[in-house]
């Protein structure tokens, strides 16, 4: 994840009651799961844009570009699954 300045005051959290702390912990867990998806989308967009978009003269995506982006994500995830399975077999 990029190093954004963390502005949350940790001393403030320390002062809270246990249930409030737990509430915040749950909140962070949910937000951090969502953020993981966001960062993956950033990564995939950059990678697939490089491979699928060659023309900067039209701001709309052509149907071929759209199809390419969609397939790019899915082939990347297929590759990811194959790699994980391949590594599991080696072990």
């Amino acid at each position, binding site marked *: 994840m990029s190093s954004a300045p963390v502005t949350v005051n940790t001393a*403030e959290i320390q002062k809270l009651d246990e249930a*409030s702390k737990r509430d915040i912990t749950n909140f962070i867990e949910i937000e951090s799961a969502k953020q993981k998806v966001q960062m993956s989308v*950033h990564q995939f967009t950059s990678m697939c844009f490089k491979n699928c978009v060659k023309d*900067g003269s039209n*701001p709309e*995506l052509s149907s071929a570009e759209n199809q390419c982006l969609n397939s790019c994500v899915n082939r990347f995830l297929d590759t990811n699954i194959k790699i994980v399975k391949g590594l599991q077999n080696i072990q």
Partner: protein
Amino acid sequence: MAFSLFGGNSSNANSQQQIIQQSKNQPDPSNAGTVNEIKQQIQQDLAVANATELVNQATENCFNLCMKAPYNENLAESNQCVETCLGKYMRSWNAISQAYVQRLQNTPDV
């Protein structure tokens, strides 16, 4: 209170127990303001991180698409390209996000 489950009959012990019970289960309502502030701060930090990431990635990709070494192209033309490229980059972001979320929903193990 006439009686309590643990036989303690002083109202002091009872209210103490209530406080412990409350602190174990329910967030203290007097902290709700601080909790909300912290949550908002977290969301704002994440929004800044996402915006920064988008600026960095869009800059890199549109620079590669619109500017060619040795970088002495027509400035007005390449600025126009960067503008349309940014629109295209955001549309790509949305298309990728949609495809990824769809995939996550279809195969939860990915």
